[in-house]
């Protein structure tokens, strides 16, 4: 077995994969959020941003390929770990009282599954236009794809917004434990900075969630409109 294989075979190696893939997904998500916030600057800015991405295939497809590798790997590894965990305790306790674990840490796997479903829906919604085929045909005055209109129409539907907001809520929990866990799994700890890790994890989780939620809420409340 090569060292890489044996590392992946170990529980610690798998957790490192979770951490690294998680970090990449997190990095992408941060960029994605920044892009979303451009919606507050109006149609032109937003569509320019969308067109720039589209007009740069190496960046676009590079990112897409990376995510197409990393996201499945994150989930595959998670499922393998969950199976391992279930195998490690075939008989469960009749009574078990958590002492230190948090709601976030105990629900991270369920949040993850919800987020997986959400990502698929999100792709079908805004990238592949499977749910709303008409989105693909929107063009703005300059003939660019009117991503802004798509976003505004998409988020005018309260059900849609609810799905997104629930996803963002699970993201805050997923990340608050996941980001801290990432430091721990990669062995990044130091008594002096350990408290900082937890605060940073929560801060980043909240920033992401607030950032992402702001656009659908702004659309629904009419702050952002066409």
């Amino acid at each position, binding site marked *: 077995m090569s060292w890489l294989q044996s590392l992946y075979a170990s*529980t610690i*190696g798998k957790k490192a994969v979770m951490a690294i893939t998680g970090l990449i997904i997190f990095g992408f998500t941060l960029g994605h959020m920044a892009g979303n916030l451009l919606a507050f600057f109006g149609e032109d800015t937003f569509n320019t941003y969308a067109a720039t991405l589209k007009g740069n295939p190496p960046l676009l497809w590079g990112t897409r390929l990376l995510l197409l590798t990393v996201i499945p790997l994150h989930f595959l590894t998670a499922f393998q770990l969950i199976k391992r965990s279930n195998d*490690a305790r075939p008989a469960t306790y*009749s009574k078990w009282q958590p002492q230190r674990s948090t709601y976030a*840490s105990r629900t991270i796997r369920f949040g993850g599954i919800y987020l997986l479903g959400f990502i698929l829906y999100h792709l079908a919604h805004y990238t592949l236009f499977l749910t709303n085929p008409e989105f693909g045909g929107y063009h703005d005055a300059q003939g660019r794809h009117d991503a802004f209109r798509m976003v505004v129409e998409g988020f005018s539907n309260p059900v849609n917004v609810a799905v997104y907001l629930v996803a963002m809520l699970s993201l805050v929990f997923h990340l608050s434990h996941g980001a801290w866990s990432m430091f721990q799994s990669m062995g990044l700890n130091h008594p002096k900075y350990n408290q900082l890790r937890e605060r940073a994890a929560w801060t980043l989780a909240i920033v992401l969630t607030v950032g992402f939620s702001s656009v659908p809420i702004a659309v629904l409340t009419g702050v952002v409109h066409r």
Partner: protein
Amino acid sequence: MKITLNVWRQSSPEAAGSFVKYDVDGVSADMSMLEMLDVLNDRLESKGEAPIAFDHDCREGICGSCGFMINGVAHGPEKEITVCQTHMRSFKDGDELTLEPWRAMAFPVMRDLMVDRSAFDRIIQAGGYVSVRTGSAPEANATPVMKEHADMAFEAAACIGCGACVAACPNAAAMLFTSAKVSHLGLLPQGEPERDKRAIDMVAQMDKEGFGHCSNHGECEAVCPKGISVNFIARMNRDLLKATLRSSR
């Protein structure tokens, strides 16, 4: 006081087990949990019934023999002690306590509250030592050790191998136990030459025994009778990753 116990009874490793209810009266607040079980066992023995089997030895919280779940918490409600040091003053008259053995694939139940923890021994045998033959040691003060490191090494070395960390972990992971030994020796200059090999070999054995992974819940630290910190887990993760990257194997 009167205490009602719900005890897991299982006559052999193969047998199916179940909970059996016992009312124990005349319990004094100054009794330890195990003394209360002694009293119950004496009563059972007098009637010719099989006493409740549980591992125990020193009864002062250092040998690591004892341990079971009390109402879903490894070693019971008090922090940083084992069941043998848990006294009945932690409970009230009329309380109902569920006593259940450690549950993990790697810790098969032998009888009642007694489990087989030999997996821990095999993890240590895989590398939890400094390879120094008797007689080959250099003069003790030849190698100064930074006090801070020596103290931290001690904190890791304080592990008593009771298995509560595994019992409490939602994944039945042995990460706290293994990391305590990896860190204890890894923090000292004496352990440095074998540091990489030790981390790789001990983690491999830990995985082979069928323990789960670490989800960073921190349950292990919360129930550890010696208060060993999950920081040592991070340390072991770092050691293992570094060792894998730089070792020639």
